[in-house]
C-alpha cells in the first residue's frame, strides 16, 4: 500500500509535468490559478479536509476539467493514504472518487487488530453548483453555493460493527458556500454536512451512542500570498457516535502551492484529535494534485 501511494504521487507528478506539452490548448485554458481549490481526502474539490462549493479542474463553463491526487497524512500513531480522481463538467457538475487507506501500523497490534491492519474506504461523490459565483461576483457578498453527496463504503464490516458502528457504508450530504474576497485576497468557505460517519466513515457509520444523522460544520479560510500560493486553516466538526472512543474535531494549517495549472502541492499540519482511543493524532499532511 505504501508503494501504491508512492507510485500514485509519482504518477500525479509525471502527469502534471507532462500536461503542458501533451494537452496543447487544454493546458492554456481555464480558470484562474488556485480558484478550483485542491482535492480533499474525500475526493471532492476543497481545501484538503473541507469540501468547497467550487468545481474541480481548471475548465470553465466552456469545457471539462479533471484531476488526480495522492495524499499522505503521517499521524502520531496511524497513517492515512489517499488517492483519487475527479472530473468537473462545465464548471457545474463534479464527479469524484477517492480511496482512503487508514493504516494502523504498529498501533494495530495494540488495538488487537494486528500490525498494519488497514481500514480501506471508497468514497464516490457528486456535487452540483446551484447559484452564486465565488470569483467574478466581487460586487456581491453572495457566495457560490453547491450541494453534494458522498457515498462511502468501508471494507471492514465486522470490525466497525464490533466497535459499535451500525453500518460499514453511508451517505453524507452537504451544502457548501465559497467566496473569494479579492479585495482582501481571501478565500472563505463554510459547509454544512449531514453525516453518520465515524472518523469520516473509516470507523463505520452510526453507533451505540447515536445512530442517526448529525449536522456538522467544516470550513476554510485562505489568504492569497501570491498567484501561486495560498496559506490558511481549516476546521471540521464530526459526530461522536461511538461509545468506545471519543471523536474530536479536526483542524489544519495549510499552504497550497500551484506549480502550474497542471500541478499543485499542498503541505499542512493536521490535528485530527483522538482516533480509536489513541490520543492527539497530529502530523504532516502532503498532497499532490495533477490535472487540467
Amino acid at each position: 500500500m505504501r508503494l501504491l501511494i508512492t507510485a500514485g504521487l509519482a504518477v500525479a507528478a509525471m502527469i502534471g509535468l507532462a500536461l503542458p506539452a501533451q494537452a496543447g490548448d487544454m493546458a492554456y485554458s481555464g480558470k484562474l490559478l488556485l480558484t478550483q481549490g485542491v482535492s480533499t481526502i474525500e475526493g471532492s474539490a476543497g481545501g484538503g479536509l473541507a469540501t468547497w462549493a467550487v468545481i474541480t479542474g481548471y475548465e470553465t463553463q466552456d469545457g471539462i476539467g479533471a484531476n488526480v491526487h495522492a495524499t499522505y497524512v503521517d499521524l502520531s500513531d496511524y497513517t492515512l493514504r489517499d488517492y483519487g480522481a475527479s472530473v468537473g463538467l462545465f464548471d457545474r457538475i463534479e464527479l469524484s472518487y477517492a480511496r482512503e487507506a487508514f493504516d494502523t501500523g504498529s498501533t494495530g497490534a495494540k488495538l488487537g487488530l494486528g500490525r498494519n491492519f488497514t481500514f480501506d474506504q471508497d468514497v464516490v461523490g457528486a456535487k452540483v453548483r446551484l447559484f452564486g459565483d465565488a470569483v467574478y461576483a466581487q460586487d456581491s457578498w453572495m457566495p457560490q453555493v453547491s450541494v453534494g453527496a458522498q457515498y462511502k463504503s468501508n471494507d471492514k464490516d465486522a470490525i466497525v460493527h464490533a466497535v459499535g458502528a451500525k453500518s460499514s457504508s453511508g451517505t453524507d450530504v452537504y451544502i457548501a458556500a465559497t467566496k473569494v474576497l479579492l479585495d482582501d485576497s481571501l478565500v472563505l468557505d463554510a459547509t454544512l454536512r449531514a453525516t453518520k460517519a465515524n472518523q469520516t466513515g473509516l470507523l463505520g457509520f452510526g453507533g451505540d451512542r447515536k445512530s442517526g444523522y448529525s449536522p456538522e460544520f467544516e470550513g476554510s479560510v485562505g489568504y492569497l500570498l501570491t498567484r501561486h500560493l495560498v496559506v490558511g486553516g481549516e476546521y471540521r466538526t464530526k459526530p461522536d457516535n461511538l461509545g468506545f472512543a471519543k471523536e474530536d474535531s479536526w483542524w489544519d494549517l495549510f499552504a497550497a502551492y500551484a506549480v502550474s495549472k497542471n500541478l499543485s502541492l499542498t503541505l499542512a499540519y493536521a490535528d485530527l484529535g483522538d482516533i480509536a482511543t489513541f490520543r492527539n493524532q497530529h502530523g504532516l499532511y502532503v498532497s499532490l494534485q495533477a490535472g487540467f
Partner: protein
Amino acid sequence: MTLAKTILAAVAALAIASPALAADKDAGAAPFQTDALYKAFHGKPGIDRVVDTLLVLSAADPRISDIFKGQDIPHLRQMLDEQFCYLLAGPCTYTGKDMKEGHKDLGIQETDFNAMVENLQKAMDKEGVPFRDQNRFLAKLAPMERVVVQRSGAPKLLQR
C-alpha cells in the same frame, strides 16, 4: 416640449453623435474612493505601460489573439487607458462604450476573459504593482464578466 425635455433630447442626440460624450458610468464600475491604487500603478505613465503590455501580450496570446485581429488597437489602447485611470481614481474620464456594447459580437467566452485577466496580472507584475493591489483592482473588473462574456461553451441545460 418643455425646456428640460429639449435639453435632454439635445444631450441624447449629442451623445449618440459623439461617443466622446459618453459618461463615466459606462466604465463598468465605480472608481476607488482614494487614489492609493492610482499611486500603486505609478500614475498615468504606469497605467499606460500596463495597458501597453496587456495589449502586446494579448495580441500575441494564441488563446485570444483572434479577438484582437481587425480591432482598432490604438483606440482600444486609449479606451483601456481611460477606463483603468478612471477606475483607479486618477484624473481621467472614460469616453468609451459601456462594457456590454463594447464587447458585442466578439463572442467572448469565460476562458477568454480569464486569459485576458492572466495577461493583465503579468502586465501588473511587470509594472511592479503589489499583489494585494492587483487583487483590489481585479475585484473591480471581475463583475464585468457578467456582461463581457456573451457566449458559453456549456450545454444549454448546464448554462448559468
